[in-house]
């Protein structure tokens, strides 16, 4: 059990997984940000993304100094500030979409920040907002500059499968814990959440699964190695098979959904003792 399941899971439903606990999508869990909190404005500085407190820039400075203690301290502060997020495979993503309403497709802020990609219409949207928070759009449309497209469960699933086909990792986000408010579709290096996890150790925690390759079925086509965003799955030249480093595997399931021969399956993380409690 990850710490999110321990805090927000319900053993009576969804195998105790926090994101299959329907009460975490309930509208009375949603909190509006208190006035004066949150974004502090430009005076705080660019490097922090206008948030107060330590930033990625401070982590890099600490690493330059080689100061392990300071790095630890900044990392802990950033983890405490983050509200929690986890990598979710496609199968569980479908169950998540059945629990949440309304579902709105929106423009991705990470790709806008990182590559200046403007997603201005519903065919381009690569981000999903969930739950009653999306209704803020009616009140403050200026906060959603690319617009919002509200979809039903079937459309949302179809869209999510299309994102999976393109090769995006699904990361479920808490917006004011325990309210589940967003579903990011991420890739490296554009996406902030995924990149923070891989490069700095302050991003989402790993999913409840790990990938496992059936060597009898694998023919070494290498499609899974193209799809892995974490650097965990590689093509092993010696025996011409896919090879997974379970310590790096986040259990996103992209290799599984991409495999044309069905050679990759997702195991429960708890069934592999060495990585059962490896969440970062």
């Amino acid at each position, binding site marked *: 059990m990850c710490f999110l399941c321990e805090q927000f899971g319900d053993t009576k439903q969804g195998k105790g997984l926090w994101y299959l606990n329907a009460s975490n999508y309930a509208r009375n869990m949603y909190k509006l940000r208190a006035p004066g909190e949150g974004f502090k404005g430009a005076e705080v500085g660019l490097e922090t*993304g206008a948030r107060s407190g330590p930033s990625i820039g401070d982590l890099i400075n600490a690493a330059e100094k080689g100061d392990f203690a300071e790095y630890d301290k900044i990392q802990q502060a950033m983890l405490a500030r983050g509200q929690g997020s986890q990598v979710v495979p496609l199968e569980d993503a479908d169950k998540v979409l059945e629990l949440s309403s309304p579902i709105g497709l929106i423009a991705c802020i990470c790709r806008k920040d990182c590559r200046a990609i403007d997603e201005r219409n519903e065919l381009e949207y690569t981000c999903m907002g969930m739950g009653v928070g999306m209704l803020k759009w009616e009140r403050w449309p200026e906060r959603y500059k690319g617009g919002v497209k509200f979809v039903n469960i079937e459309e949302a699933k179809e869209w999510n499968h299309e994102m999976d086909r393109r090769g995006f990792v699904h990361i479920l986000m808490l917006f004011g814990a325990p309210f589940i408010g967003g579903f990011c579709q991420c890739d490296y290096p554009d996406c902030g959440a995924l990149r923070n996890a891989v490069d700095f150790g302050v991003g989402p925690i790993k999913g409840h699964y790990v990938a496992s390759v059936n060597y009898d079925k694998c023919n070494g086509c290498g499609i899974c190695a193209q799809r892995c965003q974490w650097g965990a799955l590689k093509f092993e030249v010696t025996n011409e098979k896919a090879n997974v480093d379970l310590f790096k595997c986040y259990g996103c399931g992209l290799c599984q959904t991409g495999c044309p021969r069905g050679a990759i399956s997702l195991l429960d993380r708890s069934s592999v003792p060495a990585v059962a409690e490896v969440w970062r």
Partner: protein
Amino acid sequence: MTYPLPMGRKFPKISVDLTKCTVPYLCKKCLQICPMAVFHVTRVMSKERRLEEMDPRVDSNYVIFAPRRDKCTVCNLCIDVCPVNAIKIEVHKPEKAKVETKGVQWGQQE
């Protein structure tokens, strides 16, 4: 606790002259050419203008900076592509004093 960053390595320092680079969201050449995506572009977020619609065509509504400089390899693609020469990269060289690269191609003598 994990340390994904190489501890003790000196990373390049990237500075963008915001008096020269005024409409980064329209230009976006460096953002899109960087192989490791070290640059970020963001609205100027002051408390008063937080909810305003920011026109990217107006000078200094958007600013560019390099938060992920740990991945910069000093390939100089951004310096070459910048139309207003606003980007500077300082590389740490232990044996000499700090040297600024001036858009010199790899292998070429300064």
